[in-house]
């Protein structure tokens, strides 16, 4: 039998909040009707704190903390949009665009891309850091889906959804640093990985145009990131949401 966790109180951007003691700051921020940008986080998947966009300032904490993995505590005073945070967020989005090859006008996800949305949110219209134009490739070996690594931001949502929800663990991260890439199976072509059930969950949760359905052309991708949370809820709480 579960017992309701105690309630804690604090301030976000001057506004009072109360929350369950096991809530994350991101949940509290959203419940307060506020917003911080996120890319790696997705409700329903284990948070990893990798994109660093959701960092917030907490009074008395020497470091900025990622809202998606930080648990609230009694008396927390949180600021989500200090000038420093806004500067760093914009720089982070610039670094995302500069490290890959993003040509939005020709992208399957144009108009429904979370990276694009975040760029708009933080007011980033070009990168002041030189574009790196990395040599990456496209894996079109799967019969129904493709992975265009040029657009991958290494958020690992695909890795987590396939491992945690589909239970197939087709994806992982290979190599390191700027050479990191999402790999299928033992760094094989996706179409050769027998573990893939072709469920499409990775395509649904991918925030960019990296993973897409082959039948979709420019600006035709319709992602379904909400499915991860729906499935997690169905699994853990035996409750179905019928959209």
């Amino acid at each position, binding site marked *: 039998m579960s017992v309701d966790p105690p309630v804690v109180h604090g301030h976000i951007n001057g506004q009072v909040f109360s929350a369950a003691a096991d809530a994350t700051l991101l949940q509290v921020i959203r419940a307060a009707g506020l917003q911080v940008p996120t890319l790696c986080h997705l409700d329903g998947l284990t948070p990893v704190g990798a994109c660093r966009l959701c960092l917030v300032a907490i009074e008395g904490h020497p470091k900025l903390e990622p809202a998606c993995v930080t648990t609230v505590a009694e008396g927390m005073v949180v600021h989500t949009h200090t000038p420093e945070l806004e500067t760093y967020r914009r720089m982070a989005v610039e670094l995302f665009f*500069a490290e890959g090859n993003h040509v939005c006008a020709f992208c399957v996800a144009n108009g429904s891309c979370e990276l694009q949305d975040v760029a708009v949110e933080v007011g980033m219209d070009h990168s002041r850091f030189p574009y790196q134009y990395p040599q990456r490739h496209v894996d079109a070996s799967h019969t129904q889906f493709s992975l265009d690594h040029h657009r991958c931001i290494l958020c690992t949502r695909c890795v987590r959804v396939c491992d945690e929800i589909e239970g197939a663990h087709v994806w992982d991260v290979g190599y*390191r640093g700027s050479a990191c890439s999402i790999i299928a199976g033992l760094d094989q072509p996706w179409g050769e990985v027998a573990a893939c059930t072709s469920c499409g969950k990775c395509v649904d949760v991918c925030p960019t145009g990296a993973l897409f359905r082959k039948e979709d052309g420019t600006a035709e991708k319709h992602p379904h990131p909400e499915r991860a949370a729906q499935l997690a809820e169905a699994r853990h709480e035996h409750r179905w949401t019928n959209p």
Partner: protein
Amino acid sequence: MAVSWRCCDATACRAAGAAALRQRLEAEVGAERVKPVGCLRLCGQAPLAAADHPDGSTELVAGVAGERRLDLDHPFFALQRPVVLERCGLVDPSSIDDALAQGAYATLAACRLRRAAELVEEVVRSGLRGRGGAGYPTGRKWQLVAAQSGAHKVVVCNADEGDPGAFMDRSVMEGDPHRLLEGMAIAAQAVGAAEAYIYVRAEYPLAIERLRTAIAAATERGVLAGLPIQLRIGAGAYVCGEETALLHSIEGGRGTPRPRPPYPAVSGLWGLPTLINNVETFAAIPAILREGGDWYAAMGTAGSKGTKVFALSGAITHTGLIEVEMGTSLRTIVEAMGGGGSGVVKAVQTGGPSGGCIPAELLDTPVDYASLQELGSIMGSGGMVVIDAAMAMPELARYFMRFCVAESCGKCLPCRAGTVQLEQLLDRFVEKRASPADLAQLEQLCGMVKATSLCGLGQSAPNPVLSTLRFFRAEYEAALAPGVVP
């Protein structure tokens, strides 16, 4: 009685011909009067051997033919204060009998008669701080792990020493492996752990061999108080020295850090409460429990107790392994012990890729956690590289940034993409084609990577740049392209 020899059989001397020197000495006095030992400290003169004469005097020679006699009264030796290294160079690292004869495991045996809380209290009193780089109070960490309720806890030793210029932990493992095992067994008793691991980098084959031999012998003799100690060998990633990445790696996963909390003390290896300490930290434990925490705390400064081992290298005459009291000045280390002439030394680099450069004019700085941090450097794990005028600071900063680019695990954006941009910006300074805007961008991006990266690697990657900008800014300004000098 005839002379007997101690021949250094550690990595630096092996590379410089220790085997030939030993054969020669064995031919001269007979194999039974020559024993292999760990580092004899002055590695720069390798290979080294020490002669113990029947009258009690000792003599140190260097060279494959033992042709150079070294002065043991030189400050390099005279100013050392061996605690962690008290048996290193005296004991045969492959012989448990020799170790036992020199007191190994006696403290552990005595500790078994004491209450666990007393052991923790002794470590708290000692003021010992973690020697792996971050300097977290060891006693407080032990208290935390001891306070966890789980019946199943783990002790892990971080032997992934990867900072360029660092060889303190390697020397301890190669020279006196039983001291590390004893320290871990005491820790296990103190925090209530029944299982232990040593995570050692694959690039240390001799340390691995010595540890294997030592663990097998200690287990067979039953001197480890029943603690099973397992070795885990790294696979060549610097980031696996970061504690959460290290634990992932032991679990068989990809060696990437995760956000903390939860700290390993609460949820570590396989989710169990885990005590993770550095090699040198564990190696200080037997002496602390033998002599008492107060004895240890009497050495050093207010915030930095005891002694610290440094790997001293670079533009000085005497390079090698030193152990000195905390609070010793950099000048004493560099000029008196290292023989670095004033006027030659430009700066001292401490803390490797996470640290910074202390300029020659600040050599009177005492070596303690607070003083180094105030100057924008860190104590780090103990690498100390002396820099002379031949090294341009933007180039030094780029060297460390390249290291971070190569070693970034790639999990978080600021480190993965930010260090690449920082390296390219530094290229412009090294090649003297930077603009004032580049300088502004360099500083701003350093601030961003430092403030927003997930783990210590990214958070400290900008330190070598920031520290050289602080003390050698003129070198960056001089590197602006002609015509754009402000």
